[in-house]
């Protein structure tokens, strides 16, 4: 059971407050949605939870360990942040294999399964990444985030550039990740998707949570 705790988190970048006094607790088997206009702080919050940036004030704990102090990054995390980026000269499969080789806890079969799950067939997964369409790049990014079955899955605008079929696949993936007990943090412009998938939705404005809806909260 994974637990993420944010306590009075502030982030100031170049003198501008981009995250303002955010406190929340996220636990396993829960889909947490982040909603807000561009620049409201969704991606910054995700980067903070991923350990890519550190709070100016406040703490982020993953299973009781303080990010930036006890650990640099969460032990088991898969992330898709904005535009996924891979190496152009390798195929989608090769890119994922290179990523997987670092943790070395999955083999080719699991990589292929992840590619299949996001709708990249055997032929397209062998194509060079530079020949991928935007939608295919997005699918590969999602596959990279989920292939190792991490305890925390962060998906920032996962439906960008996807067709209707792709959006349905994302929904299926999010539900599956929730069922297997992962912490899923999802930011999406499409309000219907968030309403459908998220157990709890945090509304962000100017870096602050102005409202939380969902289980145990009143709209």
């Amino acid at each position, binding site marked *: 059971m994974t637990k993420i705790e944010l306590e009075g988190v502030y982030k100031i970048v170049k003198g501008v407050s981009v995250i303002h006094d955010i406190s929340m607790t996220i636990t396993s088997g829960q889909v947490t949605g982040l909603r807000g206009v561009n620049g409201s702080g969704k991606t910054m919050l995700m980067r903070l939870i991923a350990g890519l940036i550190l709070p100016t004030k406040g703490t982020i704990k993953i299973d009781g360990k303080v990010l930036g102090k006890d650990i640099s990054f969460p032990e088991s995390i898969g992330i898709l942040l904005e535009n996924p980026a891979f190496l152009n000269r390798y195929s989608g499969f090769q890119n994922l294999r290179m*990523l997987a080789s670092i943790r070395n806890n999955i083999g080719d079969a699991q990589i292929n399964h992840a590619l299949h799950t996001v709708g990249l067939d055997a032929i397209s997964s062998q194509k060079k990444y530079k020949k991928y369409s935007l939608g295919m790049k997005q699918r590969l990014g999602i596959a990279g985030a989920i292939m190792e079955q991490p305890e925390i899955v962060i998906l920032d605008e996962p439906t960008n550039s996807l067709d209707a079929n792709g959006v349905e696949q994302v929904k299926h993936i999010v539900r599956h990740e929730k069922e297997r007990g992962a912490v899923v943090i999802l930011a999406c412009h499409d309000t219907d998707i968030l309403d459908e998938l998220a157990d709890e939705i945090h509304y962000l404005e100017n870096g602050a949570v102005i409202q939380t809806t969902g289980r145990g909260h009143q709209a």
Partner: protein
Amino acid sequence: MRYFKLIKYDLKNGFQLGLIKLLIVALLAIIFCIDFYFRKSNVYFFNDHTPPGTFIDYLFYMLAGMRDEVSAPTEGVKWLLLQLFILYSTLYYPHRDLSSLGLSILVRTKKRSAWWVSKSIWIICYTLGNYLVIFLTVFVFCLVMQEPISLNITSMFVRDILDVISPYDTFSPNLVYIIAFLPMIISIALNLFQMTLVLFIKPLYSFGVTAVIILASVYQLHPFLPSNYAMPIRSEYVIENGMQASDGIAMAICLLVISIIVGCLYFRHYDILNVD
């Protein structure tokens, strides 16, 4: 184990991305070899035959640097071009890797310090690679042109072609080590310094600052300007009161160690935002 995989990733990926730049270094080396070959033909035009240039003569010509009193702005352009190009060739990889697959790899590696050390190792290896390319190019050129593959420095080239007034008739064998290693060691230290600087300022500014340090060395013979040691022509073995190799090595090691440690400590709290 993850640490070694990270190093393997950086070496493979960094060298693949930098392959064209290594080829450009080889091309520059060929041009400078041809330049030396024809310059000695011109200088000794009235001799019965042009004296052969050894492997180390070609390297010396290429990596000599500029005399301490610069007579023409074009003097030592070869040295400057090589130094700046090698500096530029390591500028973007570490930074841009964070907007590519490197971001996901960093998160999987779990340790920020491991990422920094791995990038430092890449910088060291890639800079060594640049010099290896230069050495190999000169070696092949000498083979093709049937010039002697030898480490004997020809004194008259230093006087007639490099235009140096030296108190020595023959040069110490130590000068060979200085030609072969000091420019390389100083290059490594400056490249690491540049990488650390990128954490504080934009990459292009970091290149600019480091380039200014190199340029300042050209016009100022000063023991605290590191690139002075990267110019064998200013060595204690060539001119009177020249730069001491031991000081150069000490300065390079200090710069290298400080750059890696400062970078490593700073990167532990560095915000990985969007890379432009």
